[in-house]
């Protein structure tokens, strides 16, 4: 493939590498001295290269925090568009009329790597204050095959870098390694199977020469998993199911006679985090299926709605923490677990923070999976009176009950077939990522302030069919939905500040030393004071922000980048709650800002 720009030095290195591959060398054996070879060493020490953004969530702890200070609270009012680039991937497929952009760009040494909803990867040269497309890798995703079983949009949240490869997923279930220099596909592997209702929307997490993949499909009767692929041999290293097999620990939490566990859901479609000190991957697990008929699947339904800690080398489960046992609300826990160390009297307190669809933010001791604190981060919660101070379980939770009812008057059930719940089934907080400022110890949650109406349909085994919805009901949107950014002081577990917004936050957060950046589905990208959340800057992109901002430097100059193109679940399933957003057009555009 023709290169549109670049340097001869780089090209000759690419040639050498290509030769190395041809000679059968393992990627791990390639020397990592080259500045743009991505190694485990670099991934562990991203603080040494603050101008780059190497991880999907910025670092292994999912802080999405940048120490760059050229753009700060004093001058952010002068932030302007530096350049833009139109991308593709807007076309529809399956049940979707169009795609959207939910990705986080990766930045390395002046080049950006972004994806569109169908998984095309774009390498963009950002040198010289403008963006030039270097290459585009189009994986030719099978639109109808994948789009028919994507519950919530034509989405791809981005790439990862490893060695001289760009690692990405496609909605139709592939893991793809693309040569970073040439844009040529080096290899690809089927990890998920759309014939089973499995699709992939998340960015891969790279840990020690493995790509970790999560799966979506809990609305289609999948049995969820997290899988690790060796990037040298392209072989699967481990695959850990989020629903235990018969006789395995946790299988006793599926007490039905329907074999519900086999189609029990437990998706893993948001990229997780990694704690190198204990070689532990922490990953969120989605809702059980059928979503709204929990009497079909009596028991706690482990490990749905849980944070899971896995041994990174073996995939073995170390601990779990479940937020909503026997969930009747679609309150999944796929969200990223943010890893934070706080000073304590007996040494640092090692926490995993998760903002759940159920409206509560949790701090878990990540050495043992024990509850530390939890609090509601939304304005309205109706499904429970609160969390037990000791265990963090909803106070109505009764371990002796096979089918949980929580606040029974609002909880969807076979005797309460139509009911209104708060938060609504989108949360709370959905996939849009939080950010954490380690200097201020503030954690910023992008919030959907919502209620919606749930109608239950009794599930029966004959209704379970491959590639067909398996939800036991569905939501409708009789209520207006708004949003907020909620900042939590993690030293106290209390809300430090809250900024209400006219629309739900469908994009996510970026934190810098004294600012936070975010966006609105009505088009605005905004910057706020890190403490007060007061708005200091705004630019209207004219599209719908459905992706998180990030920041990087090129030639010593700081930029903020964000993908803009409203897609995902919202404009098909939830638009009636935000009627003003009906006028937002599909789009696919990268915005880059600078002073």
């Amino acid at each position, binding site marked *: 493939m023709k290169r549109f720009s670049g340097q001869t030095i780089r090209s000759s290195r690419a040639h050498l590498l290509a030769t190395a591959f041809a000679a059968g060398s393992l990627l791990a054996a390639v020397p990592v001295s080259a500045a743009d070879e991505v190694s485990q060493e670099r991934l562990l020490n991203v603080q040494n290269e603050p101008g780059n953004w190497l991880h999907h969530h910025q670092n292994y702890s999912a802080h999405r925090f940048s120490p760059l200070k050229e753009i700060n609270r004093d001058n952010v009012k002068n932030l302007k568009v530096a350049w833009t680039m139109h991308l593709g991937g807007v076309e529809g497929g399956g*049940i979707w009329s169009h795609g959207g952009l939910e990705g986080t760009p990766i930045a390395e040494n002046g080049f950006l790597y972004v994806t569109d909803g169908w998984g095309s990867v774009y390498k963009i040269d950002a040198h010289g204050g403008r963006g030039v497309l270097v290459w585009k890798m189009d994986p030719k995703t099978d639109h109808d095959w994948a789009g028919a079983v994507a519950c919530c949009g034509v989405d791809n949240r981005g790439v990862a870098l490893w060695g001289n490869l760009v690692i990405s997923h496609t909605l139709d279930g592939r893991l793809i390694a693309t040569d970073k220099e040439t844009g040529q596909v080096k290899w*690809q592997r089927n990890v998920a199977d759309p014939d089973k209702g499995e699709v992939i929307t998340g960015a891969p997490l790279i840990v020690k020469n493995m790509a970790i993949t999560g799966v979506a499909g809990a609305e289609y009767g999948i049995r969820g998993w997290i899988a690790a692929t060796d990037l040298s041999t392209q072989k699967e290293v481990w695959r850990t199911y989020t629903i235990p097999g018969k006789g395995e620990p946790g299988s006793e939490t599926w007490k039905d006679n329907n074999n519900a566990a086999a189609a029990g859901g437990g998706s893993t479609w948001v990229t997780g985090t990694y704690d190198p000190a204990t070689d532990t991957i922490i990953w969120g697990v989605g809702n059980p299926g059928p979503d709204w008929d929990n009497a079909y699947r009596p028991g706690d339904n482990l490990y749905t709605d849980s944070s899971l800690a896995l041994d990174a080398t073996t995939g073995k489960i170390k601990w779990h923490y479940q937020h909503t046992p026997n969930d009747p609300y679609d309150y999944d826990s796929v969200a990223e677990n943010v890893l934070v160390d706080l000073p304590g009297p007996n040494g640092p307190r090692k926490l995993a923070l998760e903002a759940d669809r159920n409206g509560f933010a949790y701090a878990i001791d990540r050495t043992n999976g024990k509850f530390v604190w939890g609090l509601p981060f939304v304005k309205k919660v109706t499904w429970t009176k609160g969390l037990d101070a000791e265990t963090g379980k909803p106070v109505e939770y009764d371990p002796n009950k096979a089918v949980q009812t929580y606040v029974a008057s609002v909880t969807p059930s076979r005797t309460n077939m139509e009911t209104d719940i708060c938060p609504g089934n989108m949360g709370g907080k959905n996939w849009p990522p939080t950010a954490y400022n380690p200097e201020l110890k503030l954690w910023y949650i992008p919030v959907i302030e919502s209620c919606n109406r749930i109608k239950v349909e009794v599930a029966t085994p004959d209704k379970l069919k491959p590639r067909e919805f398996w939800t036991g009901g*569905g939501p409708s949107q009789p209520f207006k939905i708004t949003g907020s950014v909620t900042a939590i002081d993690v030293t106290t577990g209390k809300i430090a500040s809250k900024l209400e917004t006219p629309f739900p936050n469908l994009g996510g957060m970026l934190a810098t030393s004294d600012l936070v950046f975010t966006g609105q589905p009505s088009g605005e990208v905004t910057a706020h004071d890190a403490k007060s959340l007061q708005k200091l800057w705004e630019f209207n992109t004219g599209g719908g922000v459905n992706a998180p901002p990030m920041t990087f430097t090129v030639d010593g100059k700081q930029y903020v980048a964000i993908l803009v193109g409203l897609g995902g679940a919202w404009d098909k399933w939830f638009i009636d709650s935000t009627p003003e957003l009906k006028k937002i057009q599909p789009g696919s555009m990268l915005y880059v800002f600078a002073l």
Partner: protein
Amino acid sequence: MKLNLLAASTPMLRVSVAALAFAMPAVAYGQAAQPASSDPTAAGKAVFAKANCVGCHKWHGNGGGGYGGDALSLRKTALTREQIIETVGCGRPGTGMPFFTRGAYDEIKCYGMNRQDAGAQMPPEGGTFLRQKDIEAVADYVLAHIKGAGEPTYAQCVDFFSSGSRVCDIYKPKEEKPDTTASMGKSQ
């Protein structure tokens, strides 16, 4: 178009047909993009795809639950041709089924109602408007290929998707299903 069909239709439909007839071109929606076909309902199939009927009813028309609520099964529908035409043109009040006739509930009353009468029951507007001939074509397609067709089959799926998509693979009898591992690895 046959006059006896008009006579059998509801008063609303007669109005809408009359209102639209003057603008009706000879070629149905989407037909130009389709290769010549011996199936007289090919134009209706194109409408079914392009008007995003598949978005809720799926390619097979069986609908199903999910985040958008339950789109009714067109395979199990008892609606007549006229009722299907009316439902596509006017939507279904109080549900997510949109209307596809330009001016429905405004200059053209639906089920005897204008927008004001429909109030909170007003159905959403379709993503595209369809001409009366296109609505009839999609109704004829539903009658010929979907209504009463039982469970979806591989042959029906392949017939619907002319592309090389793997969307139909699950309908294949087990012995015909390709080994998915065969496409793994260095396929490019």
